[in-house]
């Protein structure tokens, strides 16, 4: 008996799969499962976070529903995975944020955007908010740089702290001995596996989405989203360095590094999330964890909004729309940061930890 019903079901399935093993070549979940004969809650949470939801083991399984063994690994692991996010959330008091995640995220997003708009309006007069500002320091007419930096650093640091605390709790549960350290080699292997989405390929042919015909597009959209996010983050970091080290103030010309990085990233953050959303709409409902639809869509929407407002700001920054767009963009980014530890963003962190664990197990077994 496990802590939750979905873990009981995951245990049942892993017992079926362990006596079958036909899927062992498809991804990391099955070889990891084969290293065990019995499954603790931590083991099941580990396996759940190793799964990339490619769908292959559902389409390939002779026991998928309507077969009476009712084997649906992707869906079961998706639910278990989502429940693990809440179970390891820090502080515990906020783990409820996962239950109605779409709602929570949209409220936080709406509030932060509104706060920036009203904030800009309250601190500045109307003419500043709707004025045309150009040249270095234009953004800071609306909000002083130091205030912006302080606010976003605080939000970012909080998010980092909450994420580190959550993933520590997760790692404790999945490592043996409890709390055992991760070695550099395994971390490096996991970075490579995560960076190329090694296991999101249905065993080589691509991801299964709407039917038994594999396509690789979810992997492509995921790459666009992830690398788009990384590029945007890099753009912000470079801009911060420019500001403090070179005393160069934003906005920067279009050919300058922060803008180039931000533009590429922004494009990724627009196409990627749209693609993922469309794939989700088409996905066979049998593979979906419907209860977490809000969480997935909420996160996709936040990334999309961040990308879209950022790109709009770039294009319209020399017009009167700049003020409101800056407020929207900052609001979106702020909401993204503070909701990070309580939304779909954590899947990347937990999956990475699971990949480290897997790399470590492989090394010990070899």
């Amino acid at each position: 008996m496990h802590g939750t019903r979905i873990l009981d079901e995951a245990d049942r399935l892993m017992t079926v799969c362990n006596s079958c093993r036909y899927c062992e070549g498809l991804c990391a979940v099955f070889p990891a499962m084969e290293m065990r004969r019995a499954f603790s809650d931590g083991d099941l949470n580990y396996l759940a976070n190793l799964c990339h939801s490619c769908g292959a083991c559902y389409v390939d399984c002779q026991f998928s529903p309507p077969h009476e063994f009712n084997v649906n690994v992707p869906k079961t692991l998706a639910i278990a995975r989502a429940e693990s996010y809440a179970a390891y959330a820090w502080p515990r008091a906020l783990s409820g944020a996962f239950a109605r995640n779409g709602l929570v995220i949209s409220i936080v997003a709406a509030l932060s955007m509104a706060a920036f708009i009203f904030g800009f309006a309250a601190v500045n007069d109307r003419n500043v908010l709707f004025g045309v500002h150009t040249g270095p320091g234009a953004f800071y007419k609306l909000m002083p740089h130091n205030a912006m930096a302080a606010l976003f650093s605080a939000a970012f640091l909080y998010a980092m702290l909450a994420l580190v605390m959550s993933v520590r709790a997760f790692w404790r549960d999945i490592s043996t001995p409890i709390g055992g350290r991760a070695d550099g080699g395994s971390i490096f292997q996991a970075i490579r596996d995560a960076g190329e989405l090694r296991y999101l390929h249905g065993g080589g042919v691509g991801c299964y989405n709407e039917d038994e015909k594999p396509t690789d597009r979810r992997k492509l959209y995921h790459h666009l989203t992830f690398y788009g996010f990384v590029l945007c983050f890099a753009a912000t970091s470079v801009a911060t360095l420019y500001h403090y080290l070179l005393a160069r103030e934003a906005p920067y010309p279009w050919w300058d590094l922060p803008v180039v990085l931000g533009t590429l990233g922004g494009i990724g953050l627009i196409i990627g999330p749209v693609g993922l959303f469309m794939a989700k709409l088409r996905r066979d409902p049998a593979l979906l964890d419907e209860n977490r639809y809000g969480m997935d869509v909420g996160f996709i929407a936040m990334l999309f909004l961040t990308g879209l407002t950022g790109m709009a700001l770039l294009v319209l920054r020399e017009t009167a729309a700049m003020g409101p767009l800056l407020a929207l963009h900052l609001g979106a980014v702020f909401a993204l940061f503070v909701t990070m530890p309580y939304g779909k963003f954590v899947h990347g962190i937990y999956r990475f930890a699971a990949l480290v664990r897997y790399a470590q197990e492989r090394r010990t077994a070899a």
Partner: protein
Amino acid sequence: MSSKYDVLVIGGGNAALCAAISARRGGASVLVLEGAPKFYRGGNTRHTRNMRCAHDAATEILTGPYTEEEFWEDLLRVTGGQTDEVLARHMISESKDILNWIVEQGVRWQPSLGGTLSLGRTNSFFLGGGRAMLNALYLTAERLGVDVEYDAEVTDLVIEDGMFLAARLKRPIRGETEIRATALVAAAGGFEANIEWLKQYWGEAADNFLIRGTPYNRGSILKMLLDKGVQEVGDPTQCHAVAIDARAPKFDGGIITRHDSVVFGIVVNKHAQRFYDEGEDIWPKRYAIWGRLVAAQPDQIAYIIFDSTVVTSFMPTLFPPIAGQTVAELAGKLELDPIALEKTITEFNAAVRPGTFDHTILDDCVTEGISPPKTHWARKIETPPYLAYPVRPGITFTYLGTRVNKEARMLMADGKPTGNMFAAGEIMAGNVLGKGYAAGMGMTIGSVFGRIAGREAAKHARN
């Protein structure tokens, strides 16, 4: 979709799809009629894992070599010589090329991961298993323009003078119940899911058989063909049967109900008596004999009994073992006579001679002075908890079939080849397998003869 095809394929498994693809590549228009609904398409092929092919050198997926001669010797050994040598040798030689051909049809192999099965040299494993393999074949067939109908059970064949004319369907497809075609490929499996038919040879015992694979292989096409004068091959009581968990579903339990723990313990019947040498040969070579052995026991039930020292020596099982702290407690749970079981185990333990246990070879752990003996891997059963799996005969597939020649063309009762009827897979497996079985041969028979049947049928249709 036209109402007359060059080639009509009946069935939806490996043999059928290999035939359909090969006929289509040969330029024919092809219709596949699968009696099962889409999820259950592909009959027993859904449950397979690997295929046995000869090869002259190691490859990425196989250690090697596994020569034609060695394959032939393995076949000779398991069948005890009951095989058609010409056909068998032809199949073995064609199997070499099948390894590559099947990959060209989109099927992917998995690098042998070692694991619990020691078949890395002789057998190639499908990545994702048999259903993944089938999905790939269906995708290729559809891409090539093969028409496929599901829920399309063929209920009658119109055959005149050894010539196939048309097939009739139970459910009209697109307004038609009769499909005409220039050539027929019958690839509709054996009759293992037809308990009534099995009873003709096994009597009431067949009621206690469990069918490991599809409930849709009822042998209806085989019966029609035999009734219409096609020559029969094989002994109807011969089949591939293993001992599987008695708690498995009646049909379609698949691979996960098997037990490979026999060599680690003893097997008793419902009177708590041993009845066969559990240490005769290495699994999986001897894996296929236990189905028949259990079928011959009263009520077709037996119990594999072992103790807690060996639980991690074999594959994890779907159903957990039944456990008792004492032999008597275990006997109670199994509804066996406790005194009889205790006596059997005590006598067995007393007969065990010291040796060096090694389950990967025929070791020197033997019994002395009991009958039947246990000639290898004999160790005392004495460390509680005592454990047991109840087992019943699990029928994999039957060997009674239609006689074919090297072109996969069926022969009529008078020995003459039919004009336009071909057979592949389980439905003609008995040509090669008179009895016995070696892992992976079901798929070899289906792929090799399927490919030939499709090619020859297309050739006939386009003449």
